[in-house]
């Protein structure tokens, strides 16, 4: 039997007692949950620049980052924050429809709760009507598109047409936040008309060892662990974790989740460098083992 399958079987028989770690909820869930969003310097930079551009009505903002750097969490953060504001309506597209510009417009329309139409011009007229209605109340529409590196040139053309709409103050009527992998930058170069309208670009880089430590501490704190308790992760455990995960937040969370489960299974009290090294030697394919069932 493969080691991954063995791990799966062991975990199936094992129900983690998170209380023993002093937390009320699993601290290292890999789902995009804004409550657990750790603000590294790069994330804060992206947040401040993009939110400034959105609120100043500057149009399009782009955030790029490799897989697992926290783009989807950031998208959820923007959506949850601006949805709550009385002066914004927000639409979030997690996965855009393939190639067709009209289908993308229809998806955005559905998110805003307006009528979907079969012709592009009709659909744009629906957006125009939405603008007239919302701008009279001082409300700004915000569109957040995750996985934007998958957008086709045709879809960028339709987004550019949305960006051409103006609000009564003369600013851009629709605010757009695009989040995607670094290929997004390359794709944008192929659509210069749209690219010229991008107000700000930010990138999410992997974390430093110090940020890795802060992320782990923040996650444990957010999950309810008392900061006065003995640290669950010893100081010397951070570097091996960072080396193994290369500083990618999702990988850090996945490894830390497995380390916590291993600690619970072995009735240990603290995760130190030796513990991490031994775990990685014994379960080098821990990534293949299931994780969602424990969250």
């Amino acid at each position: 039997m493969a080691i991954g399958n063995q791990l799966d079987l062991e975990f199936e028989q094992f129900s983690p007692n998170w209380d023993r770690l002093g937390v009320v909820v699993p601290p290292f869930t890999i789902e995009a949950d804004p409550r657990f969003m750790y603000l590294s310097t790069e994330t804060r930079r992206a947040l401040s620049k993009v939110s400034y551009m959105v609120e100043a009505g500057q149009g399009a903002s782009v955030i790029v980052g490799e897989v697992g750097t926290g783009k989807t969490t950031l998208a959820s953060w923007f959506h949850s924050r601006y949805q709550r504001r009385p002066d914004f309506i927000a639409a979030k597209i997690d996965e855009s429809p393939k190639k067709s510009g009209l289908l993308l417009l229809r998806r955005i329309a559905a998110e805003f709760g307006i009528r979907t139409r079969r012709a592009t011009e009709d659909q744009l007229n629906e957006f125009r009507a939405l603008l007239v209605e919302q701008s009279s109340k001082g409300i700004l529409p915000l569109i957040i598109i995750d996985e934007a590196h998958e957008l086709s040139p045709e879809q960028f053309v339709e987004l550019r047409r949305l960006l051409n709409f103006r609000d009564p103050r003369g600013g851009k009527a629709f605010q757009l936040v695009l989040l995607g992998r670094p290929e997004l930058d390359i794709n944008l170069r192929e659509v210069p008309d749209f690219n010229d309208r991008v107000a700000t670009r930010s990138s999410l880089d992997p974390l430093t060892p110090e940020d890795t430590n802060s992320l782990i501490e923040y996650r444990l704190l957010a999950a309810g662990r008392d900061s006065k308790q003995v640290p669950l992760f010893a100081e010397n455990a951070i570097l091996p974790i960072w080396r193994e995960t290369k500083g990618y937040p999702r990988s850090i969370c996945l490894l830390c989740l497995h380390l916590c489960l291993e600690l619970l299974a072995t009735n240990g009290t603290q995760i130190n460098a030796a513990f991490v090294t031994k775990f990685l030697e014994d379960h080098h394919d821990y990534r293949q083992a299931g994780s969602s069932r424990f969250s």
Partner: protein
Amino acid sequence: MSKKENTPPPSTLAALLKDKPKRGRPLRAVSRQNVYVALTKKQKAQIKEMAASLPKGITRADVPDLAIAILSARMEALRRAVSGRDREIPEGITDLESIYLLWDISVYEAKDTPRKWTSIRLSPQPSIELGRVHGMLYAIFSTNRSETFGLGLDLLQQFVETVLPDLDIETCELAALRQIIIDNYL
């Protein structure tokens, strides 16, 4: 008739107007006020270095006034940019450090850096502006007056390094440089 009788008596009105300052702005600069802030050693050195990089006619004593001028102009620009919204500061700016990140200012000293209380001398208008910006930042982020002034110093440093070389000014007075700053950001 004696000589004395020939000279007309001095006009009362002329006497009243003689050597009297004109109404409005005083002819001489009004003395600066002491404002107390806690500065790090690095910030004190920063003031000295910046004074050397500024155009002729601007002295070290003018640096605090300029720092407040630039801070006030940039905060006003930020406020105007989001004036249609229901917040004075955008949603993603969650603390003072976020403002540093927004404006790409590299110098940011941690809160626990040792500081010494010192007095800076500010002209009347900049001292009012410092109070206004401090009040706003304190209400949003609990920023103290020293941190507010520190932000002004870092903004001035950025201006000196990035904007001033392009302007190519050799000699300038304080009021003129203040106007250049306002024109540049507002």
